[in-house]
């Protein structure tokens, strides 16, 4: 039995809300992350999905201890890092790197690409000047940039290229765990696909473990092994990719799946929208936090908090009625991509591959 690389146990992050200029009174608490537990196995990709304000990015930052948790245990490679000293944490961070959402604000505009990519190595005392130089060139090649890009500045690059630089920086110290915080959300569609493919290739090559944060379920389906769905600071469902998409048991997961616009004009009526807005995390609803928007809510949901419980092999959901929630049939009523389009895509891929071998 392999040990999890990262393990969160009942982790909470509460932000006090204060009022008053001189004498500050605590008037409430924002429960940003409220009792999150999961395990991340080596070489695996766990995706954390949810809408803005659900606490997914906070969870990612908590996992790396970039922010301090209020309570709970975070174990990295078996070691509780919530109590680790600064020096220990510094050493550990070599092992855990992060890729940020916005490639425009996460690269220092006054540093060259070489300086940016080499910085983690400098911080962690890896190699000497010459070996770092070589490593930067090697990393640039890995992320499909050219060695001569090393002397340029971030503003000379497009969004996709900047994200590649961010990935090269994260990989420079050969981490085991990479937290990807919405790495493709700010990119154009065609560039998104390039970066998603690159992340998958790199994972295969270096056996990386990814904690992948995203607001979209479609991208996640391509990169993850397991998926956790968050709502108002809590995990409402966590399962293998296959069981989550084929048999979502939490009404919120179903709503997220249903809300994603399907790229097929012949299936328009399928789009059913969830009413209402996300409630404030300052005063989350009583009972099940989703009951205010849930189409299946009953009396019990208003008063009793549902536990995140096992409902199948590796499949956990936090719903009183997880077993009786109607099956979700979004993908069963259609036959997927139109065969004609499928052929086209295959033709495109073949030609692209042929062209790549000619130029190589």
């Amino acid at each position: 039995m392999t040990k999890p690389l990262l393990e969160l146990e009942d982790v909470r992050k509460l932000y006090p809300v204060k009022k008053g200029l001189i004498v500050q009174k605590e008037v409430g608490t924002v429960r940003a992350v409220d009792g999150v537990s999961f395990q991340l196995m080596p070489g695996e990709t766990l995706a954390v999905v949810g809408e803005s304000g659900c606490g997914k990015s906070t969870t990612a930052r908590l996992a790396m201890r970039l922010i301090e948790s209020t309570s709970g245990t975070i174990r990295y490679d078996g070691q509780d890092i919530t109590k680790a000293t600064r020096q220990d944490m510094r050493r550990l961070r070599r092992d855990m790197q992060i890729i940020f959402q916005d490639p425009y604000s996460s690269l220092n505009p006054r540093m060259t690409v070489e300086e940016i990519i080499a910085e983690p190595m400098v911080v962690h005392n890896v190699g000497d000047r010459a070996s770092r130089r070589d490593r930067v060139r090697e990393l640039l090649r890995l992320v499909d940039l050219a060695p001569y890009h090393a002397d340029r500045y971030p503003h000379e690059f497009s969004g996709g290229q900047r994200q590649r630089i961010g990935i090269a920086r994260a990989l420079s110290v050969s981490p085991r765990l990479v937290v990807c915080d919405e790495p493709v959300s700010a990119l154009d569609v065609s560039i998104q696909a390039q970066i998603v493919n690159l992340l998958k290739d790199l994972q295969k090559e270096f056996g990386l473990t990814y904690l992948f944060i995203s607001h979209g379920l479609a991208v996640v389906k391509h990169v993850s092994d397991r998926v956790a769905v968050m709502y108002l600071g809590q995990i409402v469902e966590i399962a293998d990719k296959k069981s989550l998409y084929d048999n979502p048991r939490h009404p919120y997961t179903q709503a997220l799946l249903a809300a994603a616009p399907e790229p097929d004009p012949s299936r328009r009526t399928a789009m059913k929208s969830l009413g209402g807005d996300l409630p404030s995390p300052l005063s989350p609803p009583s009972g099940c936090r989703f009951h205010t928007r849930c189409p299946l809510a009953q009396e019990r949901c208003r008063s009793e908090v549902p536990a995140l419980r096992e409902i199948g092999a590796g499949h956990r959901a936090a719903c009183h009625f997880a077993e009786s929630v109607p099956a979700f049939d979004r993908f069963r009523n259609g036959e997927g991509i139109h065969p004609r389009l499928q052929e086209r895509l295959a033709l495109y891929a073949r030609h692209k591959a042929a062209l790549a071998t000619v130029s190589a």
Partner: protein
Amino acid sequence: MSETILDIRGLVTAFNTRNGAIRAVDGISLSVKRGTTLGIVGESGSGKSMLSLSVMGLVPPPGRIAEGQVMFRGTDLTKLPPSKMRDLRGNRISMIFQEPMTSLNPVHTVGFQIVEALRAHRKETAARLKEEAIEALRKVRIPSPERRFDEYPHQLSGGMRQRVMIAMALACKPDLLIADEPTTALDVTIQAQILELLRELQAETGMAIILITHDLGVVAQVADEVAVMYAGKVVERAPVSRVFQDPQHPYTIGLMGSMPRMEEDVDRLVAISGVVPPPFRLPPGCRFNPRCPFVGSECRVEQPALAALTDAHAVACWKAPLEEHV
């Protein structure tokens, strides 16, 4: 046959820069009929937003409309004096933008802002205008509109703000609504609500909609016709079902392949290699040729014109129809 609301003919929007004249919109012809939605798809730098600003007469200087016509119900908007254009804008043609927070004024109540839009085009009493504004808020399904009228933008959620923007845009019952990435900044469940709302409002009012987006999923859900833009040009135009079943331009196919899909398990996405070229460094020949897997020698020399493949389907590609030529 329903009336053609907007007919863009050979529109060129140019910017004079140190690097020479840049054509952000380069010879575009498109039209949209009453009660229908034209989806314009393209990535950043494709010129889709500049196209909508050109229609609105809001091209930022030093940009200018260099060639072509924008016929709105028979009137050429490019020839209209600014005062006449101002009468149309927000009245007969409205626009909603991507970021509902930055397009609303934070120091005024939403009610004030809607009334302001109405007052620009109507001479009515304040009480009457307020009534109309509340009606507009009710139309976009904002709960308790009387109360919301007196609230400030920061008191509303992102989805509510976008509803307010739509209410403002539709207050004068325009013939044409230009929606520039109206749901990009919103969460999926809220996006679904807003798209649903636009569909319902269109059915009620019969307005024409130009929906600008980079999301093929959104287009598939709401558009009747689709135009795919690349580097300032329309590369493919067809009814929505055609585009999604029989895409002909390699760029359109690449976009379809780049989209992660939930109903399919594909190991690798069919990505488009390379990046959109900057407008001052466009390649000779077809602008997509450096990224195109089907590229041939002719593609590097001459630019293909947008040519009809069937009645409704037009493609700008030397290799179209695709299967016959590759």
